């Protein structure tokens, strides 16, 4: 029983050894001057790659994206529920068939409500 935990311990040791080796390898290579040391401001920056943003990156997004995201989420979850239902449709019978239609009806009511409230119009 206790010996079984030894595998976890072994795994931990290997993981630690691997992580420490990976971290120390660049320092070792630098120490022995195997890797050339030619820093420049762009290479030393923490920004990995690509173009730097011009101006501030804390830009404001249009609030209407939120409505679209919410509507998308509701319909997306609907589809997630429909897939397992469609697979087991024969076993579920009439009860399942009508139940899902009630479920869809509730979502559609919400959708029509959003539509009537002019959420889908981009002003």
């Amino acid at each position, binding site marked *: 029983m206790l010996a079984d935990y030894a595998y976890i311990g072994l795994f931990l040791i290997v993981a630690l050894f691997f992580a420490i080796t990976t971290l120390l390898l660049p320092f070792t290579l630098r120490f022995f*001057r195997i890797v050339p040391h030619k820093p420049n401001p762009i290479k030393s920056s923490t920004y990995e*790659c690509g173009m730097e943003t011009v101006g501030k990156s804390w830009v404001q997004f249009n609030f209407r994206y939120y409505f679209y995201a919410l509507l998308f989420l509701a319909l997306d979850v609907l589809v997630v529920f429909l897939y397992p239902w469609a697979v087991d449709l024969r076993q579920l019978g009439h009860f399942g068939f009508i139940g899902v239609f009630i479920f869809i009806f509730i979502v559609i009511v919400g959708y029509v409500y959003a539509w009537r409230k002019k959420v889908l119009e981009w002003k």
Partner: protein
Amino acid sequence: MEVGRAGLYVYSDTELDRAEGAAIESLKAHCQQAIPDPDKWLEEELRRNILLTSVDFMLNWARRSSLWPVICFPACCAFELIATAASRFDISRFGMEIIRASPRQADLMITAGTLTWKMAPQVRRIYDQMAEPKWVIAMGACAISGGTFAQSYSVVPGYNLIVPVDVYVPGCPPRPEALLYGIKMLRDKISKKSITEG
């Protein structure tokens, strides 16, 4: 890049154009002389005329066997490069099939295509971000001298104004075989390098 007044969130197109133009003009002013090709160690090796040590051999073997190209294909030579990377010519034979999107993980820049001055700061930036040691293959006539567009006001006449070039592959565009030969030359060049020469 600092544009316009500090604290503004959105800049006008004019301001952005002006800032970009200033950056390009300053690069253009600094890059009028060709950067000499990094090939000192080749002559050193001839002068020393001794066998490389086993450490050098191992390091150079490791370096030349895992050349990871960075994505930097500004123009049409890229298609020959893509053909070289694809199954028929297959640069994975040289351990080069991982074409990295991040210059931090790459050590070879294959400059496939015409470089305009507008693109030049970005290419310089990619080169600066690449990890040491790094190499550059200038692929095609445009990369060597500007090619057909050498006289144009907007084209960089040769990548060696922007970055130091190790191997030149002529052709317009060079066939994949030519590029493979260039890669082979680069591998030979790397295998002659010694760690004592920095």
